[in-house]
């Protein structure tokens, strides 16, 4: 295990919430048989930390995010946001999904306004929508419809739609998974900048080891389904990070080894 002490020495802004994942197990019923997806997952996240969840495809990482978001309830175990149990969706925990899932019948501005509108506070808080669009650099596209946007722009709108709620925990479910590699690199840097500026706690599911190491304070590696925690690795490098950093390369080799993919390294 890598030095935890270093990661703990970093101070976080107070906006983010802490998250405790306490002995979570979950399963799906598929045609009468029970398919376990999460097995006794246990970890906690400090306010403002950036955690990456890595694991083989289909291992249950995204399910864990749905549980954190409150979209489903776990079979056993408790999730706590700032010590209070999670019982359902709440705008303090917002998800950015792999697909932007913008509402095609709404303009960019109205998509970003969705959360405030749903909470009934849009009328008095319209400037927050403008600010969120500014934040992702899409103010000129406020009146465009989603089908007029490129994939990267759509995902930025989705990001703005999440950030406009000033979330305490931002949940990113492979948000860059479907973007081209150049757009990905740009947006990775943007996500770090937003996180540093806003101070929310971030939970990122990704398949990309490099992405996890470039973005996160901690990388939690999961086993194959049902997912168990294999390793909890602190990434003890300051931001902004360098992709060519030899320390990151070393961590990457470790992680690929944990996933059984180190043969080519």
């Amino acid at each position, binding site marked *: 295990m890598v030095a935890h002490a270093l990661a703990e020495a970093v101070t976080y802004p107070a906006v983010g919430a802490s998250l405790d994942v306490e002995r979570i197990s979950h399963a799906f019923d598929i045609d009468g048989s029970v398919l376990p997806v999460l097995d006794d997952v246990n970890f906690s996240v400090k306010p403002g930390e950036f955690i990456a969840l890595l694991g083989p495809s289909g291992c249950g990482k995204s399910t864990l995010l749905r549980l954190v*978001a*409150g*979209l489903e309830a776990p079979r056993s175990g408790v999730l706590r946001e700032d010590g209070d149990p999670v019982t359902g*969706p*709440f*705008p303090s*925990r*917002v*998800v950015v*999904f792999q*697909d932007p*899932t913008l*509402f*095609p*019948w*709404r*303009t960019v501005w109205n998509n970003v306004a*969705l*959360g405030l*509108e*749903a*909470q009934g506070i849009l009328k008095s808080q319209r400037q927050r929508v403008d600010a969120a669009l500014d934040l992702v*650099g899409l103010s*000129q*596209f406020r*009146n*465009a*419809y*989603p*089908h*007029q*946007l*490129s994939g*990267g*722009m759509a995902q930025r709108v989705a990001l703005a*739609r999440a950030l406009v*709620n000033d979330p305490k925990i931002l949940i990113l479910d492979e948000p860059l998974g479907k973007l081209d590699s*150049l*757009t990905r690199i*740009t947006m990775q840097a943007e996500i770090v900048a937003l996180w540093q500026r806003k101070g929310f706690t971030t939970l990122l599911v990704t398949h990309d080891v490099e992405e996890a190491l470039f973005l996160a304070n901690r990388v939690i590696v999961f086993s194959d389904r049902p997912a168990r925690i294999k390793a909890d690795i602190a990434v003890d490098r300051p931001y902004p990070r360098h992709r060519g950093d030899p320390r990151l390369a070393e961590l990457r080799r470790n992680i690929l080894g944990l996933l059984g993919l180190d043969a080519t390294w």
Partner: protein
Amino acid sequence: MSTYSASKTVALAQSAEEGAALSGRPLSLAVSFPAGGTGVFASLAWVGFGISCLWWPDIGDWTRTHQLAAAAFVIAGAIFLATVAGSRLGRFNAGLQRRAPWLLVSALFLTLWEAATAKFGWLPLPFFPPPQSIIEVYTDDLPKLLDSIIASVKLQLGGYVIGATVGFLTGVSIGWSRSVGYWVHPVLRFIGPLPATAWLPIAFFTFPSSWSASTFLIALATGFPVTVLTWSGVASVSNSYYDVARTLGAKPSFLVLKVAIPAALPHVFVGLFMGLGSSFAVLVVAEMIGVKAGLGWYLQWAQGWAAYANMYAALIVMSLLCSGAITLLFRTRDRLLIWQKGVVKW
């Protein structure tokens, strides 16, 4: 920002705004003629039609032959002037250019019709009346025709609005609530596929007036397709839309009104379109059988008197009304569903 094709997206946005301009693109057929050439030919064809009215004597007794010829000359002159005025008329000229081939062909058709009926009797009279006798109907029988139009529009509109509203609400309820679906779905399956006209005899007995019976039948014919399509629209809304809205703090009412219904609207409009078609059929049948007013009744009445020109005149009006109703529906859809790309232009 530089990694995104901003200019391309702006261009796309513009092309969406100018969506109407797409349909304004002239046909390649019209383009192949020299500018204005088709307009001149169309004008000549209308002159020809006018002459054909006057050249040969009528084989029957029609009072509007000269007026028809005069109207043809006026139209010919108008087309000619507009063609000569050319680009000074701006958008109107573009519209004329686009329609010139149609103006040309319709003049040829009218000439042929005139010759085949009023002049040489190739088609048997009185079943195939000449154009001037239809004009005669429009001028001499106007009050009765107008009354019929008003009666039909009132009946159709009332039934359609009721049917569409009930169908939409039912569709949303079935699509949204499992328990409503449990009770309503079997009823819908049992009653829906039955042609609304099959209810005619019963409806005319059980309803207090033939007007209310017909309203019910039109509503029924409209309601079934609207219900089914709204239901399928609501049922096919992707769960991820609901997930997104829920994580942003949406309550169930928000999920119905702001997620399910807007997402289902394209389906709803297909249902409204289908309902409109089948309600026209019911309207005409109901008017022919029970209601003592309306265009269907006018048709029936004209047939009773062997007034074939009146029938054609009423048919033309009916077709314009039905087509107009569908145009109105499509315009409404285009306004509401501006966010969709590639919708059919009616």
